[in-house]
């Protein structure tokens, strides 16, 4: 089975207008629809839109928000901006990794429920340290409050 829906990608290709519109925006749309930039999705886009795969790869690896790997259903972003750094954001990052049971080289749980990412400043410095889970932002996070913060997302996954 393909990891993408052809007609969805065809829609993005139409919007891309053979390069009149931004390739970054097109890739953002593919990632939005598929969760990540899968090999077959970008290969299909490359051939159908006439963009070299090397160029797509270049952009996908230059910008941090693109992922060539499948990501978890829930994205946990720990802010490591300066304000969060001086307020021990690093410890929160480590705690989150332990809490999700991730090995040091892993960023997504084997069941693909959670992906842990670091982010350089969410612009909520007044609430440092800050963590964002999907669309929700949490401020003044402590190591001890991490399990409680994750609880609703875990519960939703169990259902």
């Amino acid at each position, binding site marked *: 089975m393909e990891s993408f829906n052809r007609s969805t990608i065809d829609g993005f290709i139409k919007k891309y207008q053979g390069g009149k519109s931004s390739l970054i925006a097109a890739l953002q749309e593919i990632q939005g629809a598929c969760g990540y930039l899968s090999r077959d999705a970008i290969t299909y886009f490359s051939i159908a839109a006439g963009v070299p795969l090397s160029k797509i790869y270049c952009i996908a690896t*230059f910008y*941090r928000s693109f992922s060539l790997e499948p990501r978890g259903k829930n994205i946990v972003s720990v802010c*490591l901006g300066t304000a969060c750094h001086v307020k*021990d954001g690093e*410890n929160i990052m480590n*705690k989150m990794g*332990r809490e999700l049971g991730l090995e040091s080289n892993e960023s997504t749980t084997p069941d693909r429920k959670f992906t842990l990412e670091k982010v*350089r400043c969410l612009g909520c410095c007044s609430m*440092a340290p800050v963590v964002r889970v999907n669309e929700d932002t949490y*401020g003044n996070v402590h190591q001890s409050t991490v399990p409680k913060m994750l609880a609703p997302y875990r519960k939703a996954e169990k259902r």
Partner: protein
Amino acid sequence: MKVSGIKDLQKLKTRGMATLSPDKIKIMVGMATCGLSTGAGTVFNEIAAGVKKNRLNAVVTKTGCIGICHEEPLVDVLIPGSPRVTYSRMTGEKAAELLEELRQGSVMKGALGRMDEDRFLLDDTVRSYKKGRIKKELLKVPEYANLSFYKRQEKIALRNCGVIDPEDICEYIAKGGYFTLAEVLAKRPPQDVVAEVERSGLRGRGGAGFLTGLKWKICSAADGKVKYIICNADEGDPGAYMDRSLLEGDPHAVIEGMMIAGYAIGARQGYMYIRAEYPLAIERVKKALAVATAHGLLGKKILNSGFTFNISISQGAGAFVCGEETALIKSIEGEWGEPRQRPPFPAQSGLWGKPTVINNVETLANVAPIMARGADWFSSIGTKKSKGTKVFSLVGKVNRIGLVEVPMGTKLKHIIYDMGGGIPNNRAFKAVQTGGPSGGCIPKELINLPVDYEALAEAGSIMGSGGLIVMDDRTCMVDVAKYFLSFLADESCGKCTPCRVGVKRMKDVLEDITAGKGTKEDLALLESMAEDIKESALCGLGKTATNPVLSTLKYFRNEYVAHIKDKKCPAGVCKALITFLIDKNRCTGCGACVKVCPTNAVEGEKKQPHRIEINKCIKCGACFEICPAEAVVKG
């Protein structure tokens, strides 16, 4: 409704006035990202539901961030004829209590401050909220003008944040918005606008501080029919969030600034490059653009003039280097954001090779006030070479965290101590970091420094976009330097060798030092590499990358020496150089640390002093954070 002139704007103004201070109770909830991250969403829902349930004659609205971020979520109550009253740290329960008090016609206790009047910056008028005498209970509530956090502030860029509903264009117009644009389009030729902004002395608020008017002048004189204006909202400096707050709290102020800039330089198309990490800002700007277009304020023949202008949003994809203007241009063009050699400057050859002006969000928010009040008014604020105000995000180890807008030249001391209320837990102030990764650390000895472009540069830092990260004695300066260098090594685009290899190499040296593997030659090595990178890197990112190291080496050399010679981290941060211990005399044996320790490294009987097994300890700091008796110490 299409707005075709001043008359139509007046109509919308009347509508906006009616919602700004309505003839019934108005409850405003601060709903910027900072408020939302502390539960403003829940508070808003509780209040909206409570008002409906109790059939209270009141409206509930959203507003942006007024800057008092440490007291979020904030709720403001406006009773007709009475001052605006702000309540802080609101919760669902407090919201219910507030509604009950309102129902009984009384005032809830514990207000943070009261605002007796609403200032209209653009036409320099003031409207009093109160009619007649203020209720006795309210007299005890401090006026905003007397709040330490507020006293020294002068709001120009942030004039409407936390005052209007950012999604209501009528409220923006009620505060004088788009009238300046109408006046400019009707009466001021473009070169006149450029001259006015140049004379005001406004300088770029995003980093280098280039004269805005001069940039416009170069672009306006450049050959070519097609020109562009770009708003740089790729606020990547960690520790700065004024642009997010502006876009979330007053998007039309930036749009109007862009339109005036576009008119001045002869552009018909503008781009807003907003970073992907700011979803709410993107959403608010999208809505604002749609509403402005629907009202005919964007599009063809705006306000019946010959001026045609449109704005598109270009969303960033996560690359710090795209804040650099030539990289940003590449990114809008859909390419990877590598900077290029300048000249030619974008004002001559920018987006798709056309003359382009790139201005920062805060810079653009200053444009309408300058055109409305005049260059003389603007340049009367600030210092000799730095005019107007600057918004700072006062964050880190400081009591009152938030966004402050102060006249240029305000002393650090006043910002950190008077406004920020000093350092939490009475710890010692050590340094303040300004200018993001391109900036430096300013030590406590320079606390009297007046903050403007020149003074900061002289102290070895930069203004940057205005982040002020306060650090206390528990912040390690070598670790801070390492933090910035690893940030920059991550974010280097890789085009030029000095940055790609040099910054990474410097980071490696700093990693060695913080791991206790530093040698006495390292400091000289760092300094010589820094000089080379500064001279040879291609763009601003590389050229300034060494500032965090050079400034900390200049002011905190002893701390580097302690890491290298004594293998100690005086601030207790660098994990390789510290151990966690429990002070027997302080430990009450409560067991809180045992529960949180991930490796079962804490041992001890209940109610007896505990101890940490050093071999098992991974130095995660969980025990240090949780201990109620402050018995866990770093040695």
